[in-house]
């Protein structure tokens, strides 16, 4: 009979192997994709720019998770790239993209390229974990001026460019023409000034006998302090002095204006009215049902509006400004998402080749496919034609689509590029929340936001 007893040596070996496997399995990351040709060395320095893009068997690309509607077109761009180059694109879509990226970079297993955005990019760039792309831009004869200015400026920290613009948000006012007609307003005359917007809303708001809202005009916090501050010629940051400026001038005036609005239409009542209301992409959204008269959004709304509300009579308008002049449209905020290459990425050259392919060479097609704003200026005509073809000639949005692109062309403002961009964004939103709910004055709330953020900024810059 075979001796089936476990020898001491075998047992000890097995026990140690099990322990080691458990540790390694938990610590290890996914294997890096194999390169068919010698990939560029994983480097933390800017790579040589003039060399030909290195091909790779596959690239790992991480994106935010926007849901199937947007993820599928992103995958389609990847498929097209695979067909053209033979390089497989492995996508990973994740809601908590920043947390995932943080742990992956810290663990030394970053993806080849990754989604970032206007808040996340500066924070990551300051931490020194993104590869500067300037040499790649130069080596590809791509200039910053080829892109929408606000989008590319938002990728620049301390003179270096850390991202390539991917998709811009061209946000405009959607308004319900039927509601306008019902309350005696001219459906062809949307608000042009902020005062118009408030006046129209006062006519539109409808309350029941208990004082609860039955129909909304503009929201008391519309369009959000991040946007409104610039409309009042304010700003958030003095980059030269490294000074937080949200508690000065236009930003304070903007919040005071929002506080006035919230006294007309209390935030709590509006929150209760809109709570649980289906979003724009769902059937019976507040806008589609006429309960909410305005929607500040991008052209991607067309899909859901056509699908769920084919009879809705709506119009588009530029975001109202202080005086209603076209010149003030430079105060529009243009923001969106970008793509970066993390330091330590195994195949940075190949990653750049994909980014250039998707977000520069085919930017217009990508914009159309992903229903996002194109960022490459000389492809704007191609992009407009593509969107209009997608919408169709009879679509309600088609004749008004120029409002989106004109907004994109006019807007110059963006969230400041600074080391504590995420914290600042949260603090400004907290200030808005406290002031519009009557817990603080606009000045007090913004003073507090400025104090906290300035301390954080100073500490970050000192460190």
């Amino acid at each position, binding site marked *: 009979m075979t001796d089936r007893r476990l020898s001491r040596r075998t047992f000890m070996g097995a*026990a140690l192997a099990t322990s080691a496997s458990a*540790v390694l399995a*938990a610590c290890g990351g996914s294997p890096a994709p194999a390169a068919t040709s010698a990939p560029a060395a994983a480097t933390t320095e800017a790579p040589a720019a003039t060399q030909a893009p290195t091909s790779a068997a596959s690239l790992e690309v991480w994106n935010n998770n926007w849901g199937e509607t947007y993820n599928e077109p992103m995958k389609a761009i990847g498929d097209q790239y695979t067909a053209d180059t033979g390089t497989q694109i492995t996508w990973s879509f994740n809601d908590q993209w920043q947390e995932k990226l943080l742990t992956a970079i810290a663990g030394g297993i970053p993806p080849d390229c990754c989604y970032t955005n206007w808040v996340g990019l500066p924070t990551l760039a300051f*931490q020194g974990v993104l590869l500067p792309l300037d040499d790649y831009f130069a080596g590809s004869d791509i200039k910053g001026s080829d892109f929408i200015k606000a989008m590319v400026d938002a990728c620049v920290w301390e003179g270096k460019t850390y991202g390539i613009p991917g998709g811009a948000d061209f946000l405009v006012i959607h308004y319900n023409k039927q509601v306008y007609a019902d309350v005696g307003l001219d459906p062809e005359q949307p608000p042009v000034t902020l005062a118009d917007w408030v006046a129209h809303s006062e006519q539109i708001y409808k309350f029941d006998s208990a004082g609860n809202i039955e129909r909304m005009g503009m929201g008391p916090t519309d369009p959000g302090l991040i946007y409104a501050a610039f409309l009042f010629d304010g700003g958030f940051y003095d980059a030269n002095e490294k000074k937080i400026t949200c508690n000065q001038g236009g930003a304070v005036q903007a919040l005071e204006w929002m506080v006035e609005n919230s006294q007309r239409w209390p935030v709590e009542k509006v929150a209760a009215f809109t709570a*649980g209301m289906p979003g724009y992409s769902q059937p019976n959204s507040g806008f589609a049902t006429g309960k909410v008269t305005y929607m500040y959004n991008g052209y991607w709304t067309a899909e859901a509006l056509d699908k769920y509300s084919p009879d809705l009579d709506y119009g588009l308008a530029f975001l109202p400004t202080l005086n209603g002049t076209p010149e003030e449209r430079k105060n529009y905020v243009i923001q969106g998402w970008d793509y970066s290459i993390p330091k330590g990425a195994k195949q940075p050259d190949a990653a750049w080749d994909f980014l250039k392919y998707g977000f520069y060479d085919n930017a217009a097609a990508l914009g159309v496919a992903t229903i996002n704003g194109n960022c490459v200026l000389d492809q704007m005509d191609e992009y407009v034609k593509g969107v209009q073809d997608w919408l169709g000639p009879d679509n309600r949005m088609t004749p008004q689509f120029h409002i989106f692109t004109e907004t994109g062309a006019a807007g110059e403002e963006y969230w400041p590029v600074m080391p504590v961009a995420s914290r600042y964004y949260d603090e400004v939103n907290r200030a808005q929340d406290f002031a519009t709910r009557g817990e603080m004055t606009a000045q007090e709330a913004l003073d507090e936001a400025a104090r906290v953020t300035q301390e954080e900024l100073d500490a970050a810059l000192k460190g």
Partner: protein
Amino acid sequence: MLRMRPSVRRDLRNGLLFISPWLVGLIVFTIYPILASFYFSFTDYSVLKSPRWVGLENYVHLFTNDALFPKSLTNTLYYAAIALPLGIVGSVALALLLNKKITGMSIYRTIFYLPNIVPAVAMSVLWIWLLNPNYGLFNSILKGLGLPGIPWLTSPTWSKPSLILMGLWGIGGSMVIYLAGLQDIPDHLYEAADLDGANSWQKTRNVTLPMLTPTIFFNLIMSLVGVFSYFTQAFIMTNGGPIDSTLFYMLYLYRNAFIYFKMGYASAMAWILFVIVVSLTLVVFRSSGRWVYYGGSSN
């Protein structure tokens, strides 16, 4: 130096080898992170850059210059002070009701336990709808009774009570443990009480509750840790709002660690929370001699 016989030494070595997968896991994934976080709490550390020693700066800043730290702590204490006793009273009461010998009791017990197997994320989404001011079940009931609706999660006044109410939905987990405790109480104690002419309330007051105190003690300790690490529901349902009314300690800690990249600062917060929880646990342990009755003990 302690000398062991070869057989004892061999047994010790073999024993350690048998538990080595767990032991290595404990050292690598628990003890090392605990010690590392203690070190990081004295550093400026973003995870992405090397830690820089700052001494007590994180702790000093938390206690003297961070308005959100006391706010998040107060929110958590508020939640703990109400949710904890309410949960214990609710689950004990439920266990007493479900300890009756009636037909179909196992079905009732299953029904009350069911919410515990619902993932926290799914439960949060469900409760967002139940608490919806316009379409939610609770306001529909209130309106049916002719009462005004409550703004629940959209109001800073009601947001925490809403989450406490939601927490009660999960008392079935503790209820099962109390049921086990109730069934462990010897029948002869009730028979003796019957002979003494005790009514139901007197039997509950003088037999059931004293005999159940070890189970209450256990649940209290476990719940104490749970309420101070309250996170998921607030993260999904309110994300700290409105106006920081549901910014719980763990949520603020998470933001510092993963959104603001201040892992050193978050580590300091974690250690402060650890001290608070350990202190409260010690107080409960110390006080247990006065109110926890172990059958068969001389007290």
